[in-house]
């Protein structure tokens, strides 16, 4: 599968947190993706960009927190996380970037 510009649009950034690093033990990686990205799109993008086989993609919409600043109510942006399960034997080194 060849890479395409739309693949880069489907994945925004890796999520590097304690929880995400723990998931690497289950051969899963976490990405931040656009709210509009769908599971098939994400699967295709990850497979094309990282040259790996994806077993499954789970997504979750994270609601932005409501924040008050000087009495004004504000809202952080929502975002979508994609938890990508890779095929046995495949790995992605998140910290090295693309």
């Amino acid at each position: 599968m060849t890479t395409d510009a739309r693949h880069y649009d489907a994945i925004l950034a890796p999520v590097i947190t304690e929880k995400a690093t723990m998931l690497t033990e289950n051969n899963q990686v976490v990405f931040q993706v656009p709210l509009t990205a769908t599971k098939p799109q994400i699967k295709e993008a990850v497979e094309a960009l990282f040259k790996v086989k994806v077993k499954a993609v789970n997504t979750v919409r994270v609601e932005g927190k409501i924040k008050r600043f000087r009495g004004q109510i504000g809202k952080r942006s929502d975002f979508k996380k994609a938890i990508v399960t890779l095929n046995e034997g495949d790995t992605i080194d998140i910290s090295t970037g693309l």
Partner: protein
Amino acid sequence: MKITEKSKDGLSVVYNITVEVAELNESLDAKIKEIAPTLNLKGFRKGKVPTAHVKRLYGKGIMGDLLNELVQKGIDQAVNDNNVRPASNPEVGNVDNVDAILDGKAALVFDVSMDILPEFEVVDVATLSITRPVTEATEEEVTKALEEIAANSKAYEAKTGKAKNGDAVICDFVGKIDGVEFQGGAANDAQVVLGSNTFIPGFEDALVGVKAEDETVINVTFPADYGVVELAGKAATFDIKVKEVKAPKESKIDDELAKTVGLETLDSLKDAVKADIERQFASLSRTKAKRSLLDALDASHSFELPPKMVEAEFDAIWQQVQADKAQGNVDPDDEGKSEDELKGEYKVIAERRVRLGLVLAEIGRVGEVQITDQELQGALFREASRYPGQERQVLEFFQKNPNMMAQLRAPLYEEKVVDYVLSKAKVDDVKVTREELEAEDEEPQADAKPAKAKKAAPKAKKEETSEEKPKKAAKAKDEAASEEKPKKAPAKKAAKAKE
């Protein structure tokens, strides 16, 4: 860590040190485990960053630090295992594929080359025989010194009659140029010593022959090069009112004289003078004895010298010689000699200095000569008092610069070692006359060429203090070696004399 001796040539050795990959990675992990609990990264609770993640992020940087540490450790271990003492800063070379090593994929292999201090037997200091010229202050010298004091504290006595040369005239005067008073030209009750040439030329001459209560007007011309420009070369008149004429009183050596210098009786003055003279003699004879001691030490030791130390020493001397030459002070002895000849001569001196430095340090080490903090403090304050008004800055400067402290410590240490040796060695006191004592000491003074020696010293000291890092034991050595410098400029002549 594996250490092998790769080559040895005299005192220069090269060690090959290998640290295996496994060992490298092990230490890296240990290091990461150490820092991980203190890391605070975004996305992780404080200290909860997984080791693997830290390694991925910071592995290379940490490995860099680790390599420096391991190299240092390797050097230390090489030095310890082989039971040598480095005389120079060890040089690390031959490190290949640093990138692979940083990734923890290749073994760390490097060469360390250094000079080691020679192993040598210090002569038993007790067997050294040293001649120390001593002399005592004779009655004559004391009297002479007293006469000098008397001459310097001349008293004047009022006399009647005309003033003559050598007399003091107490007078008021008002100086005028073209009938107008000028600034600084007037004084009341001024004491003018005739013939002392402290006033403008002609002023004192004109007062010869005046009597008390005389009033006169004298004409003098300011010299053309007078300090005050407006007055220079001008003719001036001075209205003089003589109050008193005093004749110099023959000052006798008695209790009165003692009182003028602040002592009670003549006897105490005599004692003080005698003590002073003897102090001078003592320091002269100590210098002599020290030279004799150093000569003895130099003669009784011959061992190989670390080439790097000799080189550093030689460079310091040579630099100074060049600087002197650039300023036009060529040592008269050096005139007409080719550069190679000079280099040869200074090389000999450098070797002697290094050798003596090593010997002295070794003696000090064996004899457990140590400098107390108090002594160091004392030296520090003495140094500071040389810069009146800036004592505080000087003290601070020294406290902030360990190198400078080492420089202070060096001469102290040397003196103590010399004292120690003098106390142990067989010292023959040879009675000499004052002339002999002083005559002999002409030499060290003449060839001390303080500028040459002293200036060269700090530089060399710095170099050596930086070399002190590898081992503490080496420290004393280097210090002593550097100590040699100030004094060993004399070595030049000594060395020459020997040739």
